């Protein structure tokens, strides 16, 4: 009994409950047809959201105003550069990935430089840098689609027992990041900064380094996502990351992380990513017009947050 009560108090539980509810509604509409298939697909696509949302979550946890809006552009650039350099060669898969990571590192450092050295608020710094990054991607390959190496394409679409291999890997990564958040000096410092940056500095924590590491990590996650997504969908496109701009924030917040910073959780990212995917799928399945569909999307998101919100201590 108390275990259930304890579970109900977890900030991430609502995202999962909402995901299941939406899935059941879809299954009810189709009389169960394809319910299993939908779930498997949901895991496939939620994976990409979770990858970027992990990074975004750490950034958001740094406190009010911290958010990375350069994620879509970073995905595009990393995908474009790595695909072009690999040029479909299977032996280049690993070097290609390292190149994507390098792109992430550079973007992250650039963002931090804007935020730290030029003292630009993160939301605008990352917005500005996203233009620069997008421009770099355009300049680099002019939107030409280069096919990923076949092995990479196979790997990103492979399944074991109906569960995508990529999803399994990202579940493991999420587990590791959960430990990083809650049990390492780095994670604690992130949370402390989010609650009170000045107090964190005076408590002897290395605020500057941790901020830097967080933005860089976020960009590296985004770059990794760009790499696997390009592999998954048959090449990088200039507009490939655009829907991740708001979704990454939505996943983080619906997952139970406080937008005001200083309070985060990883499991909720999976719940929220599944929820958002299943929600769109449900409304597509219902076959409603675009207008009604958008209105319902919004209302359902708000409903979930209203139900969850009352029991969450810290809201912005």
């Amino acid at each position, binding site marked *: 009994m108390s275990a259930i009560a304890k579970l109900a108090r977890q900030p991430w539980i609502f995202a999962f409950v909402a995901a299941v509810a939406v899935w059941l509604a879809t299954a009810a509409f189709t009389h169960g047809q394809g319910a299993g298939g939908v779930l498997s697909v949901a895991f496939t696509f939620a994976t990409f959201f979770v990858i970027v949302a992990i990074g975004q979550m750490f950034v958001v946890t740094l406190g009010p105003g911290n958010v990375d809006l350069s994620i879509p552009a970073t995905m595009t650039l990393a995908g474009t550069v790595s695909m072009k350099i690999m040029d479909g060669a299977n032996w280049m898969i690993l070097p290609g990935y390292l190149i994507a990571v390098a792109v992430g590192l550079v973007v992250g450092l650039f963002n931090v430089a804007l935020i730290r050295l030029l003292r630009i608020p993160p939301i605008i710094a990352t917005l500005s840098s996203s233009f620069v990054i*997008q421009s770099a991607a*355009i300049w680099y390959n002019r939107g030409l689609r280069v096919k990923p190496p076949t092995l990479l394409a196979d790997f990103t679409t492979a399944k074991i027992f109906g569960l995508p291999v990529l999803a399994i890997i990202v579940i493991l990564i999420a587990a590791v990041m959960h430990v990083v958040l809650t049990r390492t000096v780095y994670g604690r410092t992130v949370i402390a900064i989010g609650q009170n940056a000045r107090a964190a500095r005076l408590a002897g924590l290395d605020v500057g380094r941790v901020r830097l590491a967080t933005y860089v990590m976020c960009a590296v996650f985004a770059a990794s996502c760009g790499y696997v997504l390009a592999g998954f969908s048959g090449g990088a496109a200039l507009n490939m990351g655009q829907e991740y701009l708001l979704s990454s924030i939505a996943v983080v917040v619906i997952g139970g992380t406080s937008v005001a910073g200083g309070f985060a959780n990883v499991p909720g990212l999976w719940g929220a990513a599944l929820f958002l995917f299943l929600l769109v799928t449900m409304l597509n399945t219902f076959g409603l017009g675009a*207008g*009604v*569909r958008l*209105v319902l999307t*919004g209302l359902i998101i708000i409903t979930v*947050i*209203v139900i969850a919100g009352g029991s969450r201590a810290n809201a912005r």
Partner: protein
Amino acid sequence: MTGPAFARLLRGALPALSLALLLGAIFYLQPRTMSYFGLNLLLNLAVPIALATVAQMLILTVNDLDLSIGSYVSLTACIAATWLRDTPLLGLLALGGGVLAYGALGALIHLRNLPSIVVTLGMSFVWLGLAILVLPTPGGKAPDIVRALMTWKPPYVPFPIIACVVIAALAHVALMRSPYGAVLRGAGGNPRAVARAGWSLLRVKVTMYMAAGFVGALAGIALVGLTTSADANIALRYTLLSIAGAILGGSEFVGGRVSPIGAVIGAITLTLAASFLSFLRLNPDFQIGAQGAILILVLALRALIGRAEKDR
């Protein structure tokens, strides 16, 4: 004058400074802009952005963020171009409904202690969906009186300048100089203190959200007056623009530190930044990147005074 107060003064003057700099650069690049006609063309689209930015700033005042303002402005533009023209009463009712809905959002966010970002993110879908329902394909037509106002050519001073000054002045008086304005800002700085002084925080939130809804609706109407017809996606960009403009103008995300005049200046600066680039006639490859670079450049001015401020 003591250190922090001086830094604050400097920071207060910064938005105006960057605007002047940018305007100077534009005049230099394209002397044609230095005319009544030129200023009119250069600035008229800043008017709806300025309104949207003021709306965003009102929300920022109470430590919230509105991610739906862009789609809300789109919706009100669609309503203005359809119902407001064809059946003015229905149009006004619909716009009034929007304002009330904003008030209800404020109440919901306050009573349930919700993160405004998610609620307004959800609302952005709702507004956009409604806009598509109101105007499934682009079209409609601006009400004549709105069109007439937005294309009005008063003597000597171009209309956009008058409009921006009036917007800034009204917002400034309402928020910074009115007795209740102090309470509204105080609720952003230390809500508990305001509640302990006997004010209703609920009323504060609802007031602020309704005001934002009202100003946002004005933005939609002004926009449609300029574009003559509407489109469900017409102003989605205003969400980020309004945040950027408000911050550029010296407002902060938390703590009730806002500046209405700064917000209007920030909005104009953003509009001019894009114009400046087109006057530079860059290689198309770098045009998008240059938009980022110019934003960075304008904001980097902060670094100059940043040293004077503590890491708070």
